[in-house]
């Protein structure tokens, strides 16, 4: 297996799924948000979003807090420190894969 494939194979599968990647990317850019915000921003349906959040919570990447705003229920979501670390590692892996691609690309362009 070459370096390029190894970098891609090492990606965190919990985050790499497109729906979860969207959720984690959004949560990484904010301090905290609620379920409605994620629902609007990701454009996933409630069932999908709930199941993705459950998987992320199970992996310990997301903290879910059920609370009330006045009389209305509110579900607050935030990335845990291990979640943030996992996302940083994921981004670094993606960048590493990109470096490999660029090196291959420059090698082929030089040879032609």
């Amino acid at each position, binding site marked *: 297996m070459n370096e390029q494939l190894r970098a891609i194979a090492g990606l965190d599968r919990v985050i790499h799924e497109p729906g979860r990647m969207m959720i984690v990317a959004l949560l990484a850019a904010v301090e905290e948000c609620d379920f409605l915000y994620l*629902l609007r921003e990701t454009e996933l349906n409630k069932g999908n979003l709930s199941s993705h959040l459950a998987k992320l919570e199970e992996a310990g990447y997301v903290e879910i807090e059920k609370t009330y*705003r006045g009389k209305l229920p509110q579900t607050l979501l935030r990335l845990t420190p291990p979640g943030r670390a996992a996302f940083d590692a994921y981004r670094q892996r993606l960048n590493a894969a*990109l470096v490999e691609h660029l090196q291959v690309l420059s090698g082929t362009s030089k040879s032609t």
Partner: protein
Amino acid sequence: MNDCLESLPHVPEVGDLAKLQAQMLRPAQNVNMDGSFELGWGIALLCFGLVPYLNAVLPKSVWASPWTAWIGYLPMVCLTCAAFAAYGIPRMIKRFITWPRTGYVANPNDIKLIQLVMLMVFGSALGFSLTLPFILVAEIREAISRAGAHSDLHSIILHGIELVVCATLAVYLGRKTIRKRQPLPTAYDAALINQGLGRTAAGRKCLRGVRFTLVLLFVGIPILVCGGVFGLMYLNKSAMRHTEIQWPQLGILSFLVATNAILYLMGNGVAIKQHPWKWLVLAILVAGPIVVVPAIPYPDVGPEMTPILGPFPPVMLSMGLVWCLSGAVTLISFIWHNPLPPIETP
């Protein structure tokens, strides 16, 4: 930039990174989607602009008592109102109008109330720390020239104590309030993408476009706006009630208007695509003061300062009004296009 990234051939991961990047930028880009920042800043400008008019209208006993005069009571009250308007109005709009529609979100760089108070105290303490030494030096010189005056000694001691207190506060609060802003996490290493883009003809063209846009944004626009305002004010000098040109007045006014224009452009970075009429507002924001300055009477800010500071209150009022109107229209449009979601019982 994202289109550029996706156009990079043979690198599928770039597409993922570009999507990731776009997703992560959304919360910061949507901060002013409801016009809350415009309303807050507009009301703050109105507060600043109203101070000299209130000074002229209200009875002197309100702010000119010996207890309150030394801190510039009325300007301080208006300054405090302005700071709290710029902070509180966007928070109120978000809490009662935006978040019930779009969902609650807390950005990492949002300033908290206690931080705002500390920042204001720090600003005031720093201002006094910088100005009090000049007053002290002048008083000491006068005391030396008129040896034996007890009232001078009391005043020097009082100002000395004030200087020590303000300097201590400024140093203490400065270390607490001036903090490095938390950088927004980015999905990719920009240098890496540039390196990749530079390898293809389309990528190089794209890079040139990005560089040109950056130069235009950070150098060109400020120069153009400032130059335009300055030029228009120069042409309109006869209407400014002074036969000779007041260069400091023109310069400071141009700077103020240009700064507001750039702030408006930056604050509406993404919203301006959805609301093209904001370009017209930008033009009114820049050209408005030139029309308003001669039309509205200047308040009396003292015989020495009126020639230079006189036109500031009307300019601030006109710009504050434009900011407020733009914010109100954006807010109404936001409410119109984002109805409240149905409430579900748990």
